[in-house]
């Protein structure tokens, strides 16, 4: 029995050992298989990660490009030291002066194209300033140009000092194109008002615009008057025009100034005709401020002037853009003055008018009063 027991124990021990070895082998095989799987898994996702890494590289390449362009614009040397000023053209045929040729020779192709197109447009419009928008691009044929390229070119031109761009609002921009002043075919708007004001350039330009607007208003007013008021004014005009004609005849007999070209001889005579007319019109306008006019009357006139200006701006920018401006105004008033102002009609109208006045460069009462005087 003892022997049997020993045999059984020995066999069972051996069986246990074999089982252990078998289990070990199985485990080892499993581990090897897992390792292989892991290697395969690690090997596979690498190509998937590559495109993810590529994207930032592209962005990185784009960013440096933008930075480069910005840096290049910042490094650009201004070709012109003066700020562009507002001029009006006295003639429709404006030659390409030597100065402009010298300037444009230095420009790159895109800059040259945009500058020259704008120059031609300015000549046709008889002024070197205006609104910068899609209509301008359409009129100048620059709408086919890529928008980004156009904007970039404008930036470059402004870096050169050949154009100054002013943001009126988020939607509206104006430009003033640099032009070397030429007495033969240009008229400085700054010079006009020099005797009255010694204001900075921008204000000077605005004021001149205001003067033009006021003249237009006065003309419009004269157009709307009743028939009773017309005859005396017409008589006055006729009288004055006769006087002017006589004076012109006298002046034409005198020798003409040496500098002026034959084209110019025609133009100034026209001006001498029109200027006295304006003066007489201004004199004849009933309610025109005189020394004795009270402040209330002036106030009333100013109110009509502002409403007319806003109407004109409405016509100029178009219905849809004006609606957008109104929306912006409402949001601005809400953010600045609070919600209560929106429901208070009087205050809201006041703030809205102020917003329009700043948006459309309408002069304030004091400025307007001074200009009237």
């Amino acid at each position: 029995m003892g022997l049997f027991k020993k045999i059984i124990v020995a066999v069972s021990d051996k069986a246990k050992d074999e089982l252990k070895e078998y289990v070990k082998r199985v485990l080892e095989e499993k581990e090897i298989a897992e390792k292989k799987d892991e290697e395969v898994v690690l090997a596979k996702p690498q190509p998937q990660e590559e495109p993810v890494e590529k994207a930032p590289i592209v962005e990185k390449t784009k960013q440096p490009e933008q930075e480069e362009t910005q840096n290049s614009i910042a490094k650009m040397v201004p070709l012109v030291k003066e700020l562009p000023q507002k001029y009006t053209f006295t003639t429709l045929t404006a030659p390409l002066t030597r100065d402009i040729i010298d300037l444009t020779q230095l420009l790159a192709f895109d800059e040259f194209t945009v500058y020259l197109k704008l120059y031609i447009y300015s000549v046709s419009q008889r002024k070197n300033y205006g609104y910068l928008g899609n209509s301008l691009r359409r009129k100048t044929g620059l709408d086919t140009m890529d928008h980004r390229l156009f904007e970039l070119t404008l930036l470059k031109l402004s870096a050169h000092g050949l154009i100054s761009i002013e943001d009126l609002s988020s939607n509206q921009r104006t430009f003033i194109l640099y032009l070397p002043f030429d007495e033969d075919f240009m008229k400085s708007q700054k010079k006009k008002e020099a005797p009255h004001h010694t204001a900075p350039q921008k204000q000077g330009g605005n004021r001149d615009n205001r003067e033009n607007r006021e003249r237009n208003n006065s003309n419009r007013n004269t157009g709307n008057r009743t028939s009773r008021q017309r005859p005396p004014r017409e008589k006055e005009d006729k009288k004055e025009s006769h006087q002017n004609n006589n004076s012109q005849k006298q002046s034409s007999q005198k020798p003409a100034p040496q500098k002026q070209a034959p084209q110019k001889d025609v133009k100034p005579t026209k001006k001498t005709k029109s200027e006295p007319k304006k003066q007489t019109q201004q004199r004849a306008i009933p309610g025109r401020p005189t020394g004795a006019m009270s402040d209330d009357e002036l106030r009333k006139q100013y109110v009509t002037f502002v409403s007319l200006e806003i109407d004109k701006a409405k016509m100029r920018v178009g219905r849809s853009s004006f609606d957008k401006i109104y929306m912006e105004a409402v949001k601005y008033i809400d953010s600045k003055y609070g919600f209560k102002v929106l429901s208070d009609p009087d205050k809201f109208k006041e703030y809205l008018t102020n917003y329009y006045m700043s948006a459309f460069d309408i002069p304030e009462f004091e400025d307007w009063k001074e200009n009237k005087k």
Partner: protein
Amino acid sequence: MLIDYRIFLKRIRDIEVKVVLCKNNFHWKILAEKFQATSEDIEEFYKESEIPTDIAETIVHVRSLLVEKKAELPPEDLIV
């Protein structure tokens, strides 16, 4: 407290619905006044505690809706 919360929320949401349907300045003005009165009531009621987030968010939303609606409606005459 719970009833007050519900009442306030309902008042504000009523205004929200009416703002969407509003078609003229007169109607807008009435709604704006209602909105102001309601928001003042809420502020006064929750003076000591914090205004519930639901109500606060709805107030902000309705206010922005009112501003947008004001911008959409035709402007009234201007004065200087």
